[in-house]
């Protein structure tokens, strides 16, 4: 599903990732961990081409990213659900519209949008907050809206960047439970986190990064 082969990414003489090679199979749920600045976010950004690859190759669901033309990027991103670290919710749109945006971009009809959005909000237990605006929601609720937006279009891959960053332990474990449920439906899930508690005893693969190097793998 996701293959990194000798991938290097540099920012103005600073190497963010160095010769990274790993694979994630279809339907897997994998954690990427490391300290701040270890390259977790950069690695995720390379997958949805928010950053360009300097060296090496990446393939995602059969897309050869280093060969992909700019016009193809939107279509790659439509296969990937992304849970952003900074949420990227639109303050002037309510919960329904924020989630529906991912479907409107795909040109879906109103009736279908309504059904899918309500289903996604049900998955994250937020059906009752449809008309609320992001500012009126707690951090955990906002995170759930982002997850709902990421899964609403049934992506093949779900990426989450520090999805429990500012959440209390109970809310954080609730979020991870939601990811497990989504993964159980066959979606490949890749979660970048510095919080070791999240993957402890999960039995899932954990890829460890340090200063841009892949230093090993373990089971959580």
């Amino acid at each position, binding site marked *: 599903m996701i293959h990194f082969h000798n991938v290097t990414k540099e920012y103005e003489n600073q190497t963010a990732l160095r010769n990274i090679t790993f694979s994630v199979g279809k339907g897997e749920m994998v954690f990427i961990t490391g300290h701040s600045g270890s390259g977790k976010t950069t690695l995720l950004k390379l997958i949805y081409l928010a950053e360009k690859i300097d060296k090496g190759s990446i393939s995602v669901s059969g897309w050869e990213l280093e060969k992909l033309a*700019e016009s193809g990027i*939107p279509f790659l991103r439509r296969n990937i659900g*992304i849970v952003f670290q900074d949420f990227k919710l639109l303050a002037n749109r309510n919960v329904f519209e924020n989630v529906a945006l991912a479907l409107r*971009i795909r040109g879906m*009809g109103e009736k279908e949008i309504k059904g899918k959005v309500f289903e996604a909000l049900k998955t994250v237990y937020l059906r009752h907050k449809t008309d609320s605006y992001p500012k009126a929601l707690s951090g955990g609720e906002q995170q759930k809206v982002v997850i709902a937006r990421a899964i609403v279009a049934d992506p093949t891959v779900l990426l989450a960047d520090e999805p429990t960053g500012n959440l209390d332990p109970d809310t954080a474990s609730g979020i991870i439970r939601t990811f497990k449920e989504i993964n159980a439906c066959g979606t490949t899930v890749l979660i970048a986190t510095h919080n070791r508690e999240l993957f402890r005893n999960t039995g899932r693969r954990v890829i460890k990064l340090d200063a841009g190097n892949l230093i090993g793998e373990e089971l959580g």
Partner: protein
Amino acid sequence: MKFLPYSFNISIQSLIRDKWINLLSMVTIAAGLFIISLAFFLAYNIDMATEKLPEKFTMLLYLEDNLQKEYTDNIINSVKKNKAVLSVKYISKEDALKELKSALKNSNYIFEGLEENPLPDALELKLRKDLVGPETAKKISEEVLKIKGVSEVDYGETFLSTIQYIRIGIKTIGIIMAIILSAGIIFVCYSTVKMLYYRRQEEFETFKLLGATRGFIRAPFIFEGAIIGLGGGLLSLFGMYVFYYMVILKFSVTIPFFKMILFPSDLFLVLPFLGMLLGIAGAALALGRLKY
């Protein structure tokens, strides 16, 4: 393209949200289009006023004295062969004098002591309406002067040239003004859309990350540009209509000449369409090439 209805909704919401900026742009566009319309209005009315002149235009060919009838008929036939000539009328020197006398009936003393008719026989030529112009008239004049028996040609060369210069001059000034003001209108739309885009840039970054195509991001702005331009066009049309009814028709009560001035009906279609087109052009330029 399924997203177009949504894009249209977004553009309407944005137009309402930033109503003052958009209204200001519309008024600016309307002012520009109003000036273009005025030039068009002027050109149109001058065209209408001069349209009937070719029908009245005649050339006079003065013939040498004492030509035999047969010879005169030959000249008439030669002149008729020219494709630009519509009709030829023979005016004898007697008829010409009679006409002159009737025209100057209050100054008949001029003819006192006149022993001989000083006027020559003449041919009056009418040209085909579409071919009337200084160049055609000059060409025909040169050709007929070569015919033996024709002594002089008179066709009001200066008058024809002046009319031609006025028409060309007004059209040229109109076109130049239209080009300059159209560029100005495009710039207004460009600036408005650019400003609106920057205000919502963060939103569009999210759109892109969620898989929005360039078309999805651009479409609302193109709609906005079109609506602003259309609004400007309709406002300028309203302005022109008010100008015509409040100024021109009001003046026509005291100055009858103003009654001849017409409102070009083409403006009802041209102004809104032109405004919309310029609005779209400005928006398209402002968005340029979106990077991913």
